[in-house]
């Protein structure tokens, strides 16, 4: 347990002392500070727009952070030859990878919470200036943020998986971005293929589509922006399913990553 905790702490220190990340977070705060100015352009739906913009800004920043951390998690250790000194300590590679993942996941969550708090201030300020007919649904906004965090933690596990099989930074980096895009759109494509259009395609290609659909993470369910903005109710059952899915997906991917990482050679 000590070993695991020390790895998480070490990962956390690595992230907190990374200059690139400082820059990204500075940009993030700037973006959120710009939200009131931007949302007043709409004149009428200032509150709705400020919520949308804040959540989108946070989402974008979390995407950057996730992809960067996931892709560099193992790559940097190989590139700088840190692994020769760390993996030769009596830590198993699985625990090391798990520590890395948890450190990154914690940081993504922390980032989300901090930026969320900043956004909450901004949203209150801008909605106070131009009050709306709809009350602000703080609970739903929080939920949307939480779902977003879960989504990016899933994406981080994807990034870590890619980085355990690759020696470069670019492959895991772009592959996670690709998976993110595919995962965000896969639900629509799935419904499209399942419908009328699918009948016109060959059954083989439909099967292939479906296989890919099940393989890549499905991010559509994690988009709770609309309920957050308009207060549309969210079904608890669906929510439970979504979060269980995230946990299961991460678990499976971490098992696979641990397998590939444990068999890897570090000459």
């Amino acid at each position, binding site marked *: 347990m000590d070993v695991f905790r*020390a790895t998480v702490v070490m990962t956390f220190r690595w992230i907190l002392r990374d200059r690139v990340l400082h820059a990204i977070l500075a940009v993030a705060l700037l973006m959120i500070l710009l939200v009131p100015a931007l949302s007043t352009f709409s004149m009428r739906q200032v509150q709705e727009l400020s919520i949308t913009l804040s959540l989108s800004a946070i989402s974008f920043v979390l995407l950057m952070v996730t992809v960067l951390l996931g892709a560099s998690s193992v790559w940097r250790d190989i590139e700088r030859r840190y692994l020769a*000194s760390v993996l*030769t300590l*009596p*830590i198993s590679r699985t625990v090391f990878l798990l520590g890395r993942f948890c450190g990154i996941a914690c940081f993504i969550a922390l980032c989300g919470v901090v930026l969320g708090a900043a956004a909450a201030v901004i949203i209150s300020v801008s909605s106070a200036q131009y009050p709306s007919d709809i009350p602000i649904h703080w609970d739903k906004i929080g939920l949307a943020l939480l779902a977003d965090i879960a989504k990016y933690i899933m994406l981080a596990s994807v990034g870590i998986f890619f980085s355990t099989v690759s020696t470069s930074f670019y492959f895991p980096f772009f592959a996670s971005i690709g998976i993110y895009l595919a995962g965000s759109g896969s639900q629509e494509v799935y419904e499209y293929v399942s419908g009328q259009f699918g009948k016109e395609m060959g059954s083989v290609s439909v099967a292939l589509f479906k296989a890919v659909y099940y393989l890549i993470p499905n991010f559509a369910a994690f988009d709770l922006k609309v309920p957050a903005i308009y207060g549309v109710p969210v079904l608890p059952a669906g929510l439970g399913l979504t979060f269980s899915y995230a946990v299961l997906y991460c678990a499976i991917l971490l098992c696979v990553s641990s397998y590939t990482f444990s068999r890897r050679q570090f000459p």
Partner: protein
Amino acid sequence: MNAIDIRNLSKTYRTRKWGRVDALQDLTLSVGKGEVFGFLGPNGAGKSTTIKTLMGLISPSAGTAQMAGVPVGDARCRMKVGYLPENPAFYDFLTAREYLRFVAAMFGMSPQETQAATGKVLGLLELEGAADRPIRGFSKGMVQRLGLAQAMLHDPEIYVLDEPMSGLDPLGRALVKNIIRDLKQQGKTVFFSTHITADVEVVCDRVGVIVKGKLQTVNAVHELLAAGVVGYQVQVTGLSDFSGEGVEVTVRGGGILELQVPRELLSLTLEKLGSRGAEITLIEPNRQDLESFFLEVVAQGKK
């Protein structure tokens, strides 16, 4: 039980374009408990490959290895081992002290133990002044010292050091040699690689020479040194002249005679000198040093 047991170890690297490098071929080697073993070989001989296999960084193509009776590749086998990698690099966003704390946690050391051990190794390697600076700003030699510090932190039974003297200044080299001698005094096992024969001569009990992935010879260092003695230089006073078959005589200032005596004639010559009332002031062996032995073995191995 041996500290290190290597049985028929082979490693073939696959390179791009279907290439193969036989970095290790059928290496069998044991290092006893409490022994200081020097692993000597020219560049690219396979020293680091052997050590990386021991530390579980790479898996062998064939053969097995154990440390402290536990197969390598099992993380527990490294519990009792301190390892210094070749050209080490440590998380450079941490300070030396933070890194040592991290290492201590990996070995499950308590906070009190960690505190005491950290102070001790930092002092031993003369790193106290830099302990709270980020490793990013360390010089090559400082990183090497930190590498030794982290290997010694948990007071392991077995030390595996890949070129411990590399990158160090003469003071640092002397320090490391002293540390290895101390470790031997404490009954620790030290397995270290080097290509410098002088280092082996002063600290090792046994030396193995590896060339092109094959272990050529394993010898006790004192035997090598004894076997390497080709003759003696003897200085005497109280004699104006001396002659003997095979003995070369030079007259030095201050009434000193210097004799070069072949190895097998030493006792006889000493007797003669004694009977003539000479006072012997110095006897020094003339030896073929380890370096030439090493060069010979390497030349043999390359054939």
